[in-house]
């Protein structure tokens, strides 16, 4: 537990979390593995591994490559499908005092709708609509790069999610991310999360082969932090809905940057691979930063950057 008196709780689209640190979708599975390292109740929330309507085996390996202060991945949404999640994984996650955010990807707006209905019925705390996964050719990229498609998916998700808040996850691989953010806000999104991965490539110069079997993949990790901070700041000025900020967070200072830029909460992903305790450390360091600045609550950081 953090050794500060600072109130760590934050609220994201009506969902109150005991602290602002969430783990990023796809980097934490369904919690079972890192749950062997610490009590999952120490986290603010868990974005579960991205779900699809039907089970998927994902892309062939290699699915990961290392780059300077970053990694590329091309997992391609391997998952057991939304029903298996509801039957086997959600009950496990419900053992812990932590918010559960389901992350979904569909091939059609209708698929998003069906999944939202199932997940809302099953009682997840929030649904994160992934319109930005750059790894799946069918649909994935397009929804996230075109405002009108992003809006369509958002509407469909909202109309099937009942009272469960819908958060739309934005792709950074766009010319102007604020256009997409505005489109999903207008379409009824309760929050946005960003950034998903930047598309990148690494080549083994000896074999002359791309390291990833899919040739390209999504870049994440500290390398992308400055892009994430910039985009969160831009989106925060463009929309009124709250932001879950992510991309390269590995220490409290990184999380504080995203919050100052406009995020209400932050997610930690890639940093887990170097250090399974990274989210806990980020939480504690964030509390310390807030305390050093004389704040009574971490949420006072949100949006408080003073641009020149």
């Amino acid at each position, binding site marked *: 537990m953090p050794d500060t008196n600072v109130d760590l709780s934050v609220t994201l689209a009506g969902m109150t979390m005991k602290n602002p640190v969430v783990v990023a979708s*796809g*980097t*934490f*599975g369904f919690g*079972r*593995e*890192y749950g*062997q*390292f*610490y009590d999952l109740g120490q986290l603010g929330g868990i974005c579960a*591994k991205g779900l699809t309507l039907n089970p998927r*085996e*994902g*892309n*062939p*390996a*290699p*699915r*990961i*490559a*290392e780059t300077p*202060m*970053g*990694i590329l*991945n091309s*997992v391609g949404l*391997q998952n057991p499908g939304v029903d298996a999640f509801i039957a086997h994984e959600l009950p496990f996650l419900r053992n812990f005092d932590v918010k559960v955010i389901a992350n979904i990807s569909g091939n059609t707006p209708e698929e998003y709708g069906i999944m939202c209905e199932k997940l809302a019925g099953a009682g997840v705390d929030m649904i994160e609509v992934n319109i930005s996964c750059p790894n799946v050719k069918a649909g994935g990229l397009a929804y996230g790069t075109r405002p009108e498609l992003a809006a369509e998916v958002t509407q469909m998700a909202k109309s099937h999610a009942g009272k469960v808040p819908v958060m739309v996850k934005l792709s950074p691989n766009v010319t102007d991310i604020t256009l997409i953010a505005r489109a999903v806000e207008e379409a009824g999104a309760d929050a946005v999360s960003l950034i998903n991965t930047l598309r990148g490539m690494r080549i083994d110069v000896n074999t002359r082969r791309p*390291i990833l079997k899919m040739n390209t993949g999504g870049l994440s*990790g*500290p390398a992308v932090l400055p892009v994430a901070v910039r985009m969160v700041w831009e989106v925060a000025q463009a929309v009124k809905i709250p932001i879950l900020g992510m991309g390269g967070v590995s220490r409290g200072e990184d999380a504080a940057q995203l919050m100052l830029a406009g995020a209400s909460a932050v997610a930690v992903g*890639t940093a*887990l*691979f*170097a*250090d*399974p*305790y990274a989210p806990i450390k980020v939480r504690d360091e964030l509390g310390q930063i807030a305390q050093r600045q004389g704040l009574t609550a971490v949420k006072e950081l949100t949006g408080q950057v003073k641009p020149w």
Partner: protein
Amino acid sequence: MKVERKCTIVAREEMGDAIYLVLEAGDMVRTSYAGPGQFVHVKCGEGLLLRRPISVCSCQEDVPNDLIAIAFEVRGDGTRWLAQRKVGDTLDVMGLLGNGFSIKPKGRYLLVGGGIGIPPMRGCAQATEGRSTAILGGRSKDKIILQSCFNDECAKVLIATDDGSLGHHGFVDALVRQELEQDKNYDGVLACGPKPMLRNVANVAQEFGIPCQVSMEERMGCGVGACLVCACDMADGSRKHVCKDGPVFDSKEVDWNA
């Protein structure tokens, strides 16, 4: 609760191109040993984000600190960093991870190690307490490391080198065939090495109708089963994960054409 630990290097030896390290690992063996063939996930300096998976060569419970030995070759930035560590330095290690070889009580196995796949077989030799036969292969004789340990810890040791500089001139699968022809009483074949070697060994074992377990490699992220990057294609079209479901798989499960 699983933990990641700072482990002190208490011994370091160079064996041909390989570096052999012994680490003090707290209660790591006591709390997470699950047979030979598991691996540790090692942080290789601050500059590299990803940990490197290295198989356990041998390990033992000890007081106050359990001991684990690993052996590796320099392949890139991470192993280069690791090779520069000295006795007394500490390493940030997650382990023991994954599933090792399943060994029947009193079982007698044919242990096949190729190149830097030799060290992990040592744990199998120790676990089968002198009953097994080791077949060790490599490009040339300097790649055949830990031979004297296998001599001590196995009933028989056969060597193959690609260039004929030691033992049989050729690949290990020829020796596997020879041995299985002569001796029908093995409980199984356990193998670690490059994928083409594993495939050949698996084929020979299948011919003889004898169970075969293989230790597979894949690029890893988390090392614990959370990120799903370390996919290994299975014969049934599914994908399992080397770090959690493996690294040891039944050879019949694996899709060798992937």
